[in-house]
């Protein structure tokens, strides 16, 4: 009997030795004369256990991890004999960290072979497209709107409205663009789904295409993600071979073609208009809005531009799940959010859950605190443009509006955990420095403000006229927030001001204490 063993090909697993482990398993099997089939999957998202490998058993898949090359022989023996092993984690689906999740978007990630259309279909893939092909454009739009899905890139704009705008705009050519320029530190959900379940992204984009009448699509992937580029290209080829991309999709009258384009190391290209400029072959300079991309987008044509996770949520919704999706969540944040726990965290990884879970539950309960074992002092939510939250605000529920009410943002759902050794003035400086490096240069508040911000925080850190310079920073942040053209300059004040507001002690003597001393 041949053993089916699943070894992730996900970059996060490869970075900690999954490729070497796969090779070692192969040679251990031939030494033993055992026949094995190694399936390279995506990651289940339990990164502290990576490389996490699984074996198919009659009871379900059994997991082992974190495994190294050196463990290959003993793990293989335990797999063959169904015996005990120190790294044996039991039935994968029963691992509490995984079981607690609500995996709608990530249901197949880490489970299927990301290069096989057949495997995708065997796990409910393409059901959404098949149903969409029987519906009118209006009926699809009604489903997307009913699901309550909002843009998962960070802005949270209702997806149904965006699609409807493009559907109602007439043009000889329309485009679907997938924003896979996942530049935020602490986020990796786009990378994971592209590497682990790329067909779900293709299916979501195809549904968008038939809904709005677009026949061409682009996936703009950042160059820092070579594994994702490879996985998407392989999946696109497979989908073309199976008739799921190209002319007359699935025998219907619709045509849709897809191409991957690779970025070139510019963070600002994650901003949608800058991304469109870059796709057109130009400098990634932000465009002023209006016109909206829905009216004049790629090459001036009506364009649906959505984040990877927004497209990836669509197949579930169109497969009859619109109401089920909307039943999850709180307030105006409907459905689930793939949350990413990163940085100095004990149990880091991807945790997909309904909106409404509190920050504290996520950091302490799910994440288990820091891996250094020191107390959690701050968490940055939403990438380099997201606010730093102190423990005092850990009761904030994960919800677009609740975070906004506390001067933060959920962004793309990344949470970076810091222990008590963090210097928050240094983090504030980094936010300004990063903005200065990555600014496209079009608007003054961002281009100049970020550089002045670095200089001013440097003065504060050396104790130079601290109260006066803090006032300068506050003023500067106000100018950047309200005067910048896009979120890069407009949101850099979030990490800076939150560090200043919640961790004032890191910025030299507080003004009140200074006044008292005088």
């Amino acid at each position, binding site marked *: 009997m041949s053993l089916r063993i699943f070894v992730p090909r996900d970059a*996060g697993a490869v970075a900690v030795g999954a490729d070497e482990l796969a090779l070692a398993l192969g040679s251990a099997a031939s030494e033993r004369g055992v026949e094995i089939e190694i399936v390279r999957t995506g990651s289940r998202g339990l*990164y502290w256990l990576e490389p996490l490998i699984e074996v198919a058993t009659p009871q379900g898949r059994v997991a082992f991890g974190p495994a190294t090359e050196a463990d290959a022989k003993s793990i293989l023996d335990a797999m063959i004999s169904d015996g005990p092993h120190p790294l044996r984690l039991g039935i994968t689906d029963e691992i509490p960290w995984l079981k607690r999740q609500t995996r709608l978007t990530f249901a197949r990630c880490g489970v299927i072979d990301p290069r096989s259309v057949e495997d995708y279909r065997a796990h409910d893939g393409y059901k959404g497209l098949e149903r969409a092909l029987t519906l009118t454009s209006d009926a699809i739009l009604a489903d997307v709107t009913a699901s309550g899905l909002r843009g998962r890139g960070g802005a949270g704009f209702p997806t149904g409205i965006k699609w409807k705008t493009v559907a109602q705009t007439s043009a000889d050519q329309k485009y679907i663009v997938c924003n896979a320029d996942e530049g935020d*530190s602490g986020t*990796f959900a786009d990378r994971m789904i592209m590497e682990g379940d790329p067909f779900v992204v293709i299916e979501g984009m195809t549904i968008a295409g038939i809904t709005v009448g677009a026949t061409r699509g682009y996936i703009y992937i950042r160059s*820092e993600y070579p594994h994702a580029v490879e996985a998407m290209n392989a999946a696109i080829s497979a989908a073309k071979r199976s008739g799921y991309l190209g002319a007359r999709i699935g025998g219907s009258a619709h045509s849709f073609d897809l191409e991957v384009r690779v*970025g*070139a190391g510019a963070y600002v290209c994650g901003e949608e208009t800058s991304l469109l400029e870059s796709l057109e072959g130009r400098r*990634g300079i932000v465009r002023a809005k209006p016109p909206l991309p829905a009216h004049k987008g790629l090459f001036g044509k009506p364009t649906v531009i959505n984040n990877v996770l927004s497209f990836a949520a669509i197949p579930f919704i169109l497969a009859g799940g619109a109401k089920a999706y909307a039943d999850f969540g709180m307030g105006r944040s409907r459905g689930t959010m793939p949350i990413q726990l990163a*940085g100095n965290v004990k149990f880091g990884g991807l945790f997909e859950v309904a909106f409404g879970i509190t920050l504290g539950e996520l950091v302490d309960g799910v994440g288990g605190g820091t891996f250094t074992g020191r107390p959690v002092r701050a968490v940055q939510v939403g990438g380099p443009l997201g606010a730093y939250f102190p423990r005092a605000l850990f009761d904030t529920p994960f919800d677009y509006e609740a975070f906004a009410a506390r001067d933060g943002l959920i962004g793309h759902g990344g949470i*970076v955990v810091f222990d008590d050794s963090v210097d928050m003035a240094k983090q504030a400086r980094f936010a300004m420095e990063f903005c200065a490096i990555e600014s496209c240069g079009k608007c003054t508040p961002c281009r100049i403000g970020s550089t002045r911000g670095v200089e001013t925080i440097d003065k504060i850190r050396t104790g130079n006229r601290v109260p006066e310079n803090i006032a300068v920073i506050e003023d500067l942040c106000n100018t950047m927030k309200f005067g910048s053209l896009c979120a890069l300059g407009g949101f850099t004040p979030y990490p800076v001001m939150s560090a200043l507001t919640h961790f004032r002690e890191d910025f030299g003597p507080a003004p009140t204490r200074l006044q008292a001393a005088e």
Partner: protein
Amino acid sequence: MAPVYEPWDATRGAEIIAKHTQLEGATLVILHALQEAFGYVPEPAIPMIAHALNLSRAEVHGVFTFYHDFRHKPAGRHVLKLCRAEACQAAGGDALAARAEAKLGISMGNTSADQRVTLEPIYCLGLCATAPSAMLDGRVVGRLDETRIDALVAEAQR
């Protein structure tokens, strides 16, 4: 494995450019393809791209210089990129970056005098749950600690 690049050759450059001119918005695709072949984008290629795409030389130069990825000159034999973004900072990345700089005797963004190693910052490899992370000639490495960064540096110096 260090990547192997061809020496600049105008005929070969023209061939690479011609292969992509029919694409919509081809400039970045062409720049990537040239860099993949030659290890950098040689100066003489800029007017060639401009001519092929019916753009001004200034426009192509503008695109070339906007993006961090494109190189004006060849990098060292090995390129070591260390993630310097927040998640890796939280996991002790700053100290490891300083250690790599000290071991190599160069600061971030520079190439060692013997042309063996280019050390560069990168802002997020998306390996934030196995931080700190790095990339050596396209190979990703996570959960860096002092031992691992020393091994990576030694490998890059070979």
